[in-house]
């Protein structure tokens, strides 16, 4: 189940596992007890019901235990999440610009790209803005998203680790081709990244929008 694309993603999965396991236990207790009672205290086996109107100790018990449990879940989730909000010193800054229905990435040397290239092992602050409506910048493999809200600049911190190509999708509904607002994240070694950064703009892309609407067709339409 664990996702090792980044350290952070792995920790998110740990939080998830913790909550899911506790939940499954609670669900089993409730369901098994319910089914057992319905069978065990069936009218035939138990013709006369006992009129039990409550039990304060039991009530306190099943308020207290879940409260402690959920507080723990809360804290665990918050503590991990907090990491993704702290911008480390010296983080690489990349501007992410969303618009209906594509992403563009701007690096501080002036280079623009339709696909996101990031060096492995270096923290990155992604500054998220949109030219039109709201979008949401989501990298499923990194277990993180942040909305791109009209009129504001949101941010997200990632620390790419494993080399590879990952999907980037839009998670906030943004109209007609919301589902095609897709591109790729390439995590490459630092050397490859520096080499790539030195080349000229790469506004070609193989994302899903282009599959449906190749750039030529799009230009012809407008």
């Amino acid at each position, binding site marked *: 189940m664990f996702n090792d694309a980044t350290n952070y993603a792995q920790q998110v999965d740990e939080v998830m596992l913790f909550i899911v396991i506790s939940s499954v236990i609670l669900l089993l207790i409730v369901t098994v007890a319910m089914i057992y*009672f319905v069978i065990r205290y069936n009218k035939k086996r138990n013709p006369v019901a006992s009129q039990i*109107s409550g039990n304060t100790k039991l009530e306190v018990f099943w308020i207290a235990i879940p409260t402690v449990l959920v507080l723990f879940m*809360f804290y*665990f*989730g918050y503590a*991990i999440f907090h990491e993704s909000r702290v911008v480390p010193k010296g983080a690489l800054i990349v501007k992410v610009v969303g618009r209906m229905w594509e992403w563009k990435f701007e690096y501080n040397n002036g280079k623009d790209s339709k696909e996101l290239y990031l060096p492995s092992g270096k923290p990155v602050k992604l500054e998220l803005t949109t030219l039109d409506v709201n979008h949401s910048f989501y990298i499923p493999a990194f277990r993180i*998203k942040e909305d791109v809200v009209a009129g504001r600049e949101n941010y997200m911190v990632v620390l790419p680790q494993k080399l590879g190509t990952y999907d980037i999708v839009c998670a906030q509904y943004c109209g007609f081709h919301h589902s095609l607002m897709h591109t790729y994240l390439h995590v490459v070694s630092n050397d490859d990244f520096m080499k790539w950064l030195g080349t000229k703009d790469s506004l070609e892309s193989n994302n899903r929008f282009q599959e449906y609407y190749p750039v030529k067709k799009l230009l012809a339409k407008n």
Partner: protein
Amino acid sequence: MENADTASYVDFYHAEGKHKGILSWLLTTDHKRIGLMYMCSMMTFMLIGMTLGVLMKIEMLTPGKTIVSAQTYNAMFTLHGLIMIFLFIIPGLPAIFGNFMLPLQIGARDVAFPRLNLLSWYFYMTGGIFAILSLFLRGGPIDTGWTFYIPYSIRTGTDVILPLLAAFILGFSSIITGINFVTTIHRMRAPGMGFFKMPLFVWSLYATAWIQIIATPIIGITIILVIIERLFQMGIFDPALGGDPLLFQHLFWIYSHPAVYIMILPAMGAVSEIIPTFAKRTIFGYKAIAYSSLAIAFIGYFVWAHHMFTSGISETSRFIFSLLTFLVAIPSGVKVFNWVATLYKGSITPGVPLLFVMLFVFLFSIGGLTGLVLGSLATNAHLHDTYFVVAHFHYVMFGGTVMIFFGALHYWFPKMFGKMYNEKIAKWTIPVIFVGFNMLYFTMFILGYEGMPRRYWDYLPKYQTLHVISTVGSWILVTGIIIMLVNLINGLRKGPKAPMNPWGGKTLEWTVPSPPPVYNFEEIPVITHGPYYYGGEEEK
């Protein structure tokens, strides 16, 4: 008492009134007739909504286009959401069973304001008709999603104003019903029925009514502001004009989160009725259940921003709203524990309504527990706005409220119509619904965890297998629901006559004939016991 069945009386269907035929319905002020009119209209909308849902799932069979274009798909999930939320599940149990049963359960002859009650049905219908009309006028079917997020809802070329007006009018229907119920509960309880002798369904209606009264005006104001923004470009929400789109999201969820409790609380109330009746014993922890309704209604106001964890709100807000979200889970948990404890040492007949309750407890628990996954900040940033959320809210609203809607229908059917349905067939629909439901929605949890966002017309090929399973599940589910409904309709047409108290319930609706006479009670009863008194010592 038992032979009151056969004693001569005229039930409310046959009683002579001022009007005849269809007018005896359209101009009625009888809470029972109004409840039934709500039932007919809401079930029609429910069926339209389900049809849209099934069509959406068929579209999801293959990546890319299967049957409809992206634009049509966007309109379909918007409409599906709007219908299910505003026309079906928010009026929900209160409008049907609340109207029909509230006066009966508290020993009253009608609600406090019978004419207002009729007016609220007309508001409801006007809203529904506006929503339908909007599909055929000007810009075509709205495509914003049921959440109307700005700026998209200001930019889209489709018609947003009419559906917004529809929601606005429906809001009035909701507020009026709320005021009516609060007044009725305060003023019209039978002598001897203190607040802590009220049936728990009444308690839940009471808590719900307060949310309806207090929260609904906020969506009303928000809607008006969006309309103003769209018509006059005022610059309230649109950042291009100096407005703030997050302000909209706050206002929207300040209503729409409490609205989730408008949807679920009455269902929880109905569960608290059904379990004692079929376990033949008093409810475990009456006060805990009653207070937890109020606690949910109250804390429910302070968790709205958990829908906005990824919208760029401050880390402090994320911290606080996440914490409160975890806390609001506790009273719901308390209810579940109390229900299960009520089965302990009961003398249980597993009748159809109880089986629906068991289905509910299982599905609703999954819905609630996955809410914890979404409430945690770390996992929320991954799962928010993915299919995980779609699964979560269907487990809560469909697995929770709608299953109890079905359960309540089977529970009060004999009282409402004076007929019985075929219990054997009804029992067999439950496993079908169970299998279909979990195939349809459990797969969505996995899809979401794997990163498939919601409101997607197209998807990456790796998600296809799960979508196919899910779509087949939707067919099984609706087959179960159709059999269930046909069985009820058959019961209505040619079922045997139902006795006054087929399940051996103790609340007051079971002390009047089925179906009840126009003014419910010959003589207003005097209450001496709690609502679920099956003998023995009573807690004071």
